[in-house]
């Protein structure tokens, strides 16, 4: 076990994979200096400019060219810098990358990791703060990952790089510096949730940084004698329906918490699935359907906080 940050864990995973497989390379703006969040720190020095490649500010070409390079036998890791900027490359991801294998009748694969740092940190306003994970779950052909811890940012990154499908890999910007133990031998299987807390009273389903917030909330609840089963989904497609349903059948109460807009969010999919299969009580917590602000007090209006999760759990369980 080594102690590392969320950003260092990803850099280590990329480096370990690149040492094993010369077909793996990274491309994106500012990678030559280790990436805008230092999530590629040390890699330019070890692997050089061809394999840790700078790029023009051409999101469509970064995505499109990496896709072309994937079609001919390389395994690109694409850095979009901000999930918001990746919208400039939507045709490339949705119409081209996600569909190529199917449209061409299985002749091709697009083994790519598409890194899209997402989420609110502080005062980055409406174009640098969004969480759009549910969009990508809606697109057949894509795998969708939302790691919440340094361990998962190592293990999930390794699995994403090894995967022959295109993986939309959404790291949360607010936890680059989050430290934790990382066992590089721990493997990850897509579609397996991590049980962050065990309990029989209430199921809390979350992902990305909100899973960390939910885990904190569950500790508070445990102090009050309410034991929550906290499931961090980790990947949203595929997602761990079995673990969620098993837990909900046991607890009878399902609380879903996510940072993204609640309306049409992935929480709705989890809630609907639970409602189809179990007679449980369901509550969702997500962002109101408004826009993320610069002013901190306005920004805070849209956050799902530890206190909100605690309050919602109390209200459900009491």
């Amino acid at each position: 076990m080594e102690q590392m940050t969320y950003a260092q864990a990803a850099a280590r995973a990329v480096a370990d994979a690149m040492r094993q497989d010369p077909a793996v390379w990274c491309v994106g703006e500012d990678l030559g200096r280790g990436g805008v969040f230092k999530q590629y720190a040390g890699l330019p020095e070890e692997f050089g400019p061809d394999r840790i490649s700078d790029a023009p500010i051409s999101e469509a070409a970064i995505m499109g060219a990496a896709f072309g390079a994937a079609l001919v036998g390389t395994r690109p890791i694409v850095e979009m810098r901000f999930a918001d900027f990746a919208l400039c490359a939507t045709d490339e991801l949705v119409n081209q990358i996600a569909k190529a294998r199917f449209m061409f009748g299985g002749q091709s694969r697009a083994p790519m990791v598409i890194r899209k740092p997402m989420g609110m940190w502080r005062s980055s306003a409406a174009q640098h703060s969004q969480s759009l994970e549910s969009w990508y779950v809606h697109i057949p052909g894509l795998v969708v990952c939302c790691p919440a811890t340094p361990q998962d940012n190592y293990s999930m990154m390794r699995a994403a790089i090894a995967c022959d499908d295109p993986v939309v890999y959404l790291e949360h910007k607010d936890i680059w510096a989050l430290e934790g133990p990382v066992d590089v031998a721990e493997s990850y299987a897509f579609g397996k949730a991590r049980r962050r807390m065990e309990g029989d009273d209430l199921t809390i389903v979350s992902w990305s940084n909100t899973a960390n917030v939910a885990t904190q909330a569950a500790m508070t609840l445990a102090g009050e004698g309410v034991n929550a089963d906290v499931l961090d989904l980790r990947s949203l497609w595929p997602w761990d329906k079995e673990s969620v349903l098993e837990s909900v059948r046991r607890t009878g109460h399902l609380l879903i918490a996510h940072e993204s807009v609640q309306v049409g969010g992935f929480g709705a999919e989890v809630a609907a699935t639970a409602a189809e299969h179990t007679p449980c009580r369901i509550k969702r917590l997500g962002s109101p359907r408004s826009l993320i602000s610069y002013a901190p007090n306005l920004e805070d209006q849209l956050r799902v906080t530890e206190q909100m999760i605690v309050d919602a759990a109390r209200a459900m369980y009491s």
Partner: protein
Amino acid sequence: MNRANYDRDRGMALLRMMERIRAFEEQAELAATRDELVLGAIHLSIGQEAIPAGLLPCLNTTDLLLSTHRGHGHTLAKGASPVAMMKELLGRAGGCCGGKGGSMHIADFGVGMLGANGVVGANIHIGAGAAHGAKLLGDGRIVVDIFGDGAINRGPFLEGLNWAGVFELPILFVCEDNQYSASTRTSDMTAGDGAAARARSFGIHTTEIDGNDAEAIADLAPELVARIRQTGQPEFLHARTYRLHGHTYFDPAAYRPKAESDRQWAEDDPIQRQRDVLASHGQQSDEIDKARSDAVTEMEAALADATIAPWPADNTVFDDVQDIGSPAQEAF
């Protein structure tokens, strides 16, 4: 325009390829209009055959091609099977994409044809990336990336050409300029001096050519390909041609004067031009005519084969979406 040392064998090869492309598309059109067996849109390249016929046969099979929604000719000239292509147009099992793509997504990776594309211009930066990948792998493959004149007004044209220039990639960009962006005259919607001028502004070596002159294209193509292999640098070719049919097979092209297309048919049909070149160099007329009749026989047989091919099995709709979270296991 008689030349000393004219290579009649090459001239006949050019004619045969153009006749094959035209006959394929005529049969595809019949399958759509007469037989109602082509259910989706097909975009015919009738009148544009000289570009693929002149350009693509000098590539290696392992070299790569990316094409457009108007890509039947490119695909055939890269070496794909017309039977598998026709089955694809009819959406049948045994089609090159298993009936999942149809005309607009035709691909044959076995001959380096990495796909037509239903989105205008979307193959430009993808093609640059294919060249980027080939360069990283150091495998010597080069890329030919063909797009239309309408594509030069999309972002991927700028981003893809810049990318190829910055990373010094082995790619030939070909603007197959048929003068129309669907029903709109491209010149009415294009500022400045167009494709070649824009390409030169990226410092990419650019050549302009009469895209209906198969002989001229076949003269130039080996030079361009050799230069790309030698320098590893991108090249740009602007080939002016004319789309003799409508945008799709069901578009009567009523937005342009009939006299314009009539004149093109009469004076600038690339196949008739090639027949005339061969005749003027002493090629027997029965040999010239046989190129046409052989092509029609081949493509009638391709359509007949496709017509009796079965539909793809229903459950193949769940195949080749993705390995992880595959709908074969978990559709909902």
